[in-house]
């Protein structure tokens, strides 16, 4: 996973709430067996409308997605995170994220930042006036900066450390694998096993 310290880029303002993962990437695009190539499916139904914000030339190259509340609801598909990353997004800002999507993004290195809805509105309005507005998202300083605004955000120290170091969770767990061995020794015998198969 790439390290994330801070990122500066332009914004795609997505004025919609409850953007579910079926919108981010419809199921029909989930058949690939790789983690790349999902950018074509990103918001594909909405992109078929030429008026959709993502199709506007002034937002080409945006790397920060700013969305309404409850972003990433529904399906657990991590393909939604990959699609956003494959397209070029580094950060998503919203006032509320669905739990599974947020967890997936933190595993895959896409930074999801929660800021209050009134600040989301301020940012949307600023970008709609000036689409080339540069916005910085600083994980080290835990703030979002643009124009004269500095908006602080919270993130738990452990996740922040992992993202800033670009650390792989599995590697971290394997350091403590002796604890897993010890736990397995004490598991009750009545716990089911899938093998040998009974039918």
């Amino acid at each position: 996973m790439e390290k994330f310290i801070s990122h500066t880029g332009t914004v795609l303002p997505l004025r919609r709430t409850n953007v579910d993962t079926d919108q981010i990437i419809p199921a029909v695009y989930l058949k690939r067996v790789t983690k790349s190539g999902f950018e074509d499916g990103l918001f594909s139904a909405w992109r078929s409308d030429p008026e959709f914000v993502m199709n506007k030339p002034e937002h080409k190259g945006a790397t920060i997605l700013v969305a309404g509340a409850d972003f990433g609801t529904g399906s657990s598909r991590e393909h939604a995170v990959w699609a956003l990353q494959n397209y070029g997004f580094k950060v998503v800002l919203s006032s509320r994220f669905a739990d599974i999507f947020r967890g997936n993004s933190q595993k895959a290195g896409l930074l999801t930042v929660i800021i209050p809805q009134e600040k989301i509105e301020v940012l949307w309005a600023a970008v709609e006036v000036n689409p080339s507005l540069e916005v910085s998202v600083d994980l080290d300083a835990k703030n979002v900066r643009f124009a004269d605004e500095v908006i602080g955000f919270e993130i738990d120290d452990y996740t922040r450390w992992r993202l800033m170091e670009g650390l792989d969770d599995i590697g971290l767990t394997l350091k403590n694998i002796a604890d897993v061995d010890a736990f397995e020794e004490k598991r009750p015998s009545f716990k089911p096993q899938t093998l040998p198969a009974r039918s």
Partner: protein
Amino acid sequence: MGKTLSEKIWADHVVRSAAGEPDLLYIDLHLIHEVTSPQAFDGLRLAGRKVRRPDLTIATEDHNTPTLNIDKPIADPVSKLQIDTLRNNAKEFGIRIHSLGDIDQGIVHVVGPQLGITQPGMTIVCGDSHTSTHGAFGALAFGIGTSQVEHVLATQTLPQSKPKTMAINVDGTLKPGVTSKDIILAIIAQIGTGGGQGYVLEYRGSAIRALSMEARMTICNMSIEAGARAGLIAPDEKTFEYLKSKPHAPQGADWDAAVEYWKTLNSDADARFDHEITLKAEDISPFITWGTNPGQGAPLDGKVPNPADIADVEDRGAAERALEYMGLTAGTPFKEIAIDTVFLGSCTNGRIEDLRSAAQILKGQKIAPKLRMLVVPGSARVRLQAEAEGLDKVFLDFGAEWRQAGCSMCLGMNPDQLTVGERSASTSNRNFEGRQGKGGRTHLVSPLVAAATAIRGTLSSPADLN
């Protein structure tokens, strides 16, 4: 202070706990399917890692699979590659798999319970958000992404932050024609799609206790639609009875030890939940959704809401968009909405009781003109059971299609899809834009409402048939 059920299960699975870090939880069962696993196996191969516990892992093919002509090769080459990839991965890593055509194949959340490998007090994960279904047995079960699938394959654990707890009390007696699907749709309409975010939901109260195991699964299944990763119900005699005859139920002395443990799995009287809500069972009536998220629901007796009446600005905007997408006009009585396709199936309502309850309504009736109905059992065994009871004949005589097991029209991934503008009454779990096919319009309903709708051609409950 006592502990809630989910806190007890959590405590029993903590492998490692350190200040400032998430707890490392042991995972008792890992269910996998073709869509969210290929990249995880790739990750293992790249790192030279093995599957730590193939004996706690099981795979089925469900999302991508056709429900017709399953004896022939899968026509779509991309779908076929994904299925073949799962089969190859299962073989390479020594994982039990139930492939298309196998008697134990089916939707992953139907297969686990019917094999009896879903048991009380377990931690269960799957790369699928409807893993919450297994919470009906008093298990802590939740959906994960592909990175976490890889993590569980490699270590049989997951680092997790402890969720908050919410009690949802449903007391009283349900009216005739009201099902557990109506309960959960009513709950989601009340707390919203974000209401459960960060919580484990525990469904409690006399109306929940009165439900069958399969009806409980329907409720827990849709916990994620309220934003909660997991929802559960304390196990009781019904749970033990349901499990006893299942292939992987504990045997002999293990059974006695298991039951003794399972009986401790309930929230202590002095346990405190972080949040609590209460519904009266008598107040719940057949429920449907009118919008494009599962929180946009209302009693079937009502009318399409007027967005102008919605106080919250964001909710109003979302309702306006939803009505436009759904092609609905404010003020239209729901029962006047004409339906093109009825879908009976999915991990929410594709079990034998769901098929029985619909068949009872459909028996001796004829399908509404120009309407199509797909009946898709949740597993191959559900299909066989239904055929043994003659339900297939009821569906076919009625004019419905009787399909092979799979996720089918719940998600627009396999050949069963809605076309642009086509309107469904669906017993599945999500009414998102395009969920059942690009441009498709979904109304979520119970199996009873699905059946009555297929007879009348407009959204209806069995009471409307008299």
